[in-house]
């Protein structure tokens, strides 16, 4: 089995806050991490490798410093890593990103399975995984919470839905996007950490990928961000004070007035 895992380096959104006065993002001290959902994708790839043998290749598109996330993935057990990096890739929306990643995957070579996270926590779009699959003309299943079986060129999975789950079967090669329930990621091994330091990582740009310069980065993006602003404060908050009995009495009174309770 050759499994390709797409990982993205993102700012740790837990630490991203808005400055109350200037309404700007406070970025000082915000670390870069591997997108949390991609850690589940990586873990699932490693588990499949542990069971069936083969190799796991991690792939990312990002600035040169994204290499550190690839090395981190190697420390967990990934065998090979590829960095898609080019100044021309900057400013890509999901359309250009999935094009570039699909080009990168074609360059990596034949594969059985591509794993992505459900979404990246910076953009929260969940569009890149399906986009890659469509460009590679392979089937995909989103929100995978369990892989039931792999064999005979087929994979059977459970897909988390709003009101339960679906069981599906699809042919390989395929792409899956995974949710948190799928596994508990392992910790990096000492051997992995050693290898992460020395492993050679291929870096490909537009030329190496034979990509269409019109389709990558900002230039190749169909959508454009035209404005960014802080989330509106919803409504004025009212404190309800007093003893618990008084507090509850007041609250229920207000909710009744608003016709929220009878």
């Amino acid at each position: 089995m050759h499994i390709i895992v797409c990982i993205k380096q993102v700012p740790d959104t837990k630490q991203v806050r808005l400055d109350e006065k200037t309404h700007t993002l406070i970025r000082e001290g915000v670390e870069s991490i591997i997108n949390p959902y991609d850690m589940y994708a990586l873990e699932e790839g490693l588990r499949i490798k542990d069971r069936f043998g083969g190799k796991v290749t991690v792939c990312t598109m990002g600035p040169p410093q994204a290499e550190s996330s690839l090395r981190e993935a190697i420390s967990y057990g990934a065998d090979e890593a590829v960095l898609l990096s080019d100044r021309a890739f900057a400013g890509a929306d999901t359309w250009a990103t999935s094009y570039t990643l699909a080009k990168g995957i074609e360059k990596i070579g034949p594969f059985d399975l591509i794993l992505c996270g459900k979404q990246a926590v910076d953009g929260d779009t969940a569009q890149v995984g399906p986009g890659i699959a469509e460009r590679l003309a392979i089937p995909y299943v989103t929100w995978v919470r369990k892989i039931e079986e792999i064999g005979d060129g087929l994979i059977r999975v459970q897909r988390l839905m709003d009101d339960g789950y679906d069981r599906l079967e699809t042919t390989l090669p395929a792409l899956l996007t995974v949710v948190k329930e799928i596994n508990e990621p392992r910790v990096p091994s000492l051997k992995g950490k050693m290898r992460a330091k020395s492993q050679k990582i291929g870096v490909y740009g537009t030329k190496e990928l034979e990509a269409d310069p019109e389709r990558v980065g900002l230039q190749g993006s169909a959508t454009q961000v035209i404005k960014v602003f802080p989330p509106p404060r919803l409504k004025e908050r009212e404190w309800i004070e007093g003893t618990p009995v008084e507090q509850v009495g007041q609250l229920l009174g207000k909710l009744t007035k608003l016709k929220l309770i009878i």
Partner: protein
Amino acid sequence: MTLQTRIDSDKCTGCEACLPVCPFNALEMKEGKASVNDQCTLCGACADECPVEAIFVPVLEKGEGSEEYSGVMIFAEQRLGKISEVAYELLHKGRELADTLKVSLSAALLGKDVSASANRLIENGADRVYVVDHPSLEGFTDELYGECLTRIIRTSRPEIVLAGATSIGRSFIPKVATQIGTGLTADCTDLSIDTEQRLLLQTRPAFGGNIMATIVCPQKRPQMATVRAKVMKKGVVQPGRSGEIIPLEIDWAEMSPKSRLLEIVEEITEKVRLAEADVIVTGGRGLQEEKHFALIRELAEQLDAAVGASRGAVDAGWISYAHQVGQTGKTVAPKLYIAVGVSGAVQHLVGMQSSDTIVAINSDPHAPIFDVASYGMVGDLFEIVPEMIKQLKARMGNN
């Protein structure tokens, strides 16, 4: 690159006002003047901030051939034959957008035995309904749904396509957008029209809800967006409203789907489902022990509410993941959301802050949940919640 933000270095005073407002780290100081690097997305935040108007952000031009696309289309999602609420919300919003643009509103309906529902879409504002009714669309697969919707869009050429940002919408709409070769904005919470440029302004939260971004798709058509459920309001039904129903024939023999749906498993753990509830009572780690979660269930029962949970409570194993609200759980926007013993971590807030009325009960007056609350109650949940149950029960007795 033709599209680039430019800084007039003669005008720039080096005041650095633009640096902190850039959400993308795209501005740097070079030799005492601001300069743009390639992280720039043309968002224009810097230009608004610059006190001397030294920053120019290019205006995006519309692509060729966009006049050939006209009308607004919504995807009318159904699950197990029942039209989802989000479809009605989209019809209402879609009607508003179509009226602003002075064009018609259509709906795309896919499923098995769904033709009878087409009229309900017309009564809710659609002028035209495209229907593909076939047994193989009974359950949802990306391939078949994607194939059908792509064909509908290619034949009817709407300028705007909206779908719910649900498990289904967020799964197959990216496929459709890629097939058609247009842009797609995920999980929008606000939509409006720039009438001058005839562009759809799509606003959505990003960075875990810490910022809002307005996104346009200037060159490609249709402009596509998935829209968060429960954020747009439903309209009034107009019984007897007339419209056109257009059944579409698909050559099923030529489709050779690679994936197959084996089973649909509904997991309704409580009486009321989170996504559809008007009232949600959510418990967090402040409940301290699994057995105390019974308080949340009891309060929910009194209010006819669904039960939600923070990730803290889910990770502690007190309740199943199906109840989790937040970034990694469900996004909800009920009329009333009561958060009990929930600190209000940003990942939780993004999943519930668009609720109409939010009540927070927490012993820590500095808990961030109070930042989004309409009513804040500082106190011990073990005193307040039982009292609420008691008073609610007493009211029931009086009624």
